[in-house]
C-alpha cells in the first residue's frame, strides 16, 4: 500500500490578500507499513498536506494517489486522527467506535465484538459507556485511535495527535501507538512539532520549511523496532535527533521563518 504525492501545490486565495502558497511542488512517497514523521515550524503546511492526502482539501495542482488510484475525497483506506480528538461528544466511547463500523455495514451481531477488541487494544476496555466529557485528554485520543483503527485503514494520517497532552501521557501514548502499529501494520504518517517524538516513532523523518511550504530533507532513522524507552537513551537516537534538529533549525536561523 503506497501513498504517492506528486507535484502538490496548494495556494490559498482570499479576497483583498495576495495568494498564499501553503505547499509548493511537494513530492513524497511512503508505504509498506512504515511510520513517517513530518516535522517543521508552525505554518509550514503540514496540516494542509495531510488534509489533501485525506481528501478533505482540494489541491491547487498536482495529485495524490493511493496504490495508483487518484484521491478525490476521503476514503476508508485512509484513517485520520485530529489534534482536537474530534470525538462526537453526545456519543459514548462505544458509540464513537461503532460510528464508522456501522457506515461500513458491519453486522450488529459482530459490532460488539469488534468494538471491544479495539477498545482493549487502546486500553479503554473498562470505559465503553463513558461520555467523552468524562475522559482525560489521553483517553480521548485513545478513543479516537480505536475509532480510526476499527474500520481497518491501511494508512493512518495523524495530525499532532499528542500535541495537547502532558509529557508523561505523551510518552505512554507513543509506546501504545508503536504496540498498536506492531499489531495492525498500517502505514502511519505522523505530524509533530516534537523532534524527540518524530525520531522515536519514525523510520523516516520528513523535514518541512515555510514560505513557501516545502520539504527540505528526508532523514532515515536507523533504529531497529521494537523501540523502547532504552532506545531514547542510545547514542544512535541522540545522533538522529541532532541531525533532525539541525535540519529543522537551519532555515529558521537563516531568517526564512519565525
Amino acid at each position, binding site marked *: 500500500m503506497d501513498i504517492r504525492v506528486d507535484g502538490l501545490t496548494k495556494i490559498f486565495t482570499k479576497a483583498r490578500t495576495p495568494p498564499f502558497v501553503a505547499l509548493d511542488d511537494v513530492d513524497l512517497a511512503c508505504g509498506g507499513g512504515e511510520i513517517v514523521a513530518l516535522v517543521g515550524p508552525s505554518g509550514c503546511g503540514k496540516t494542509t498536506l495531510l488534509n489533501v492526502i485525506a481528501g478533505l482539501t482540494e489541491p491547487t495542482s498536482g495529485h495524490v494517489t493511493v496504490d495508483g488510484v487518484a484521491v478525490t475525497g476521503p476514503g476508508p483506506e*485512509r484513517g485520520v486522527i485530529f489534534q482536537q480528538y474530534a470525538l462526537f461528544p*453526545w456519543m459514548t466511547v462505544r458509540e464513537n467506535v461503532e460510528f464508522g463500523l456501522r457506515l461500513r455495514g458491519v453486522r450488529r451481531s459482530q459490532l460488539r465484538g469488534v468494538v471491544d477488541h479495539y477498545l482493549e487494544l487502546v486500553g479503554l476496555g473498562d470505559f465503553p459507556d463513558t461520555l467523552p466529557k468524562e475522559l482525560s485528554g489521553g483517553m480521548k485520543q485513545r478513543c479516537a485511535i480505536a475509532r*480510526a483503527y476499527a474500520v481497518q485503514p491501511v494508512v493512518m494520517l495523524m495530525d499532532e495527535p499528542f500535541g495537547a497532552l502532558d509529557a508523561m501521557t505523551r510518552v505512554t501514548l507513543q509506546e501504545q501507538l508503536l504496540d498498536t502499529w506492531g499489531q495492525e501494520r498500517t502505514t502511519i504518517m505522523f505530524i509533530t512539532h516534537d523532534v524527540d517524538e518524530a525520531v522515536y516513532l519514525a523510520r523516516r523523518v520528513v523535514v518541512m520549511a515555510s514560505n513557501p511550504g516545502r520539504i527540505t530533507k528526508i532523514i532515515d532513522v536507523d533504529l531497529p523496532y521494537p523501540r523502547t524507552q532504552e532506545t531514547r537513551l542510545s547514542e544512535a537516537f541522540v545522533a538522529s535527533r541532532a541531525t533532525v534538529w539541525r535540519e529543522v533549525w537551519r532555515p529558521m536561523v537563516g531568517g526564512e521563518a519565525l
Partner: protein
Amino acid sequence: MLTRLNRLPMLAYYVATIALGFALWSILARLVGNGLLPPPETVARAFRSEYERGAFIDDIVASVRRVTLGFVIGVTAAIPFGFAMGWYRWGRGLLEPWVQFFRTIPALALIPLYVIAFGIGEFPKVLVISVATFLPTVVATYQGVLDVDGTLINAARVLGANDGTIFRRVVVPSSLPFILVGARISLGAAWGTLVAAELIAASSGLGYLVQRSALYFEVPSIFVAIITIGFIGLAMDRAVALVHRKATHWQERR
C-alpha cells in the same frame, strides 16, 4: 458573615426571597392604597372568588391550550427553516431577509391583519402565538448549525459518512442544545403574546380575564390573572429546562 450566608441550601434563598417579596408587597400596598395595589390578602380572596365563579378553570385551560398549540406549531415549523438556513447557501439567501424583516415587526401590529384574514376564532389567536414563537427558534437553530464544529464534520467524513449521515448524526445532535435554548425563549414569547392574542374577541382565557377585570376596575382580579400566568409560565419553563438538561447531559459544563 457573607461566606457563611453563601453556604445555605438553595431552597433557603428561594423561601427567603419569596417571603421578602410578600413583605415588600404588603408594605407598598399600604403606602399606595386606594385600590391601585391590593395587598396579598385581598388578592388571595380574589383568587377564591374567581375560583368559585367557575369560569376561572376554563380560562386557564383556554390559555394553556392556546399557548401550547401556538408554541408547538411555531417551534416545529421553525426547526426545518433554521436547518435550511444554516446548512444550505440557498436557504440562507432566500430565507434570511424575511426572518430579519419579520423580526422587527411587533407581534401586536399584525393582529388586525389576522382578524381581517381569519376572523375572530381560535385560529388567529393561535397564529399570533405561533409567529411569536417561530422567530426565536429559527434564529437559534440557524446559529446552532453555523456553530457545528468543522472538525467533527471532517471526522465523520473520513469515517465514511455522506452528507445525509453527517446531517442526521452530527449536525442535528450538535445543534440540539441551541434549538432547545431557542424553544425556551420561544415559550417566553408565547406567554408574552397571550394577552395580545386574547385581545381578539376572546370570551375566555387569562388574557381575557385581565381585560374584563380592567374594564370593571377589579384590580385584585387583574393580579389573579397575572400571578396565574406567571406561575403556569414558570412551570412550563421548568419543564422545557428539564428537557434541555436531559438532552444535553453530554455537554461539558463550566
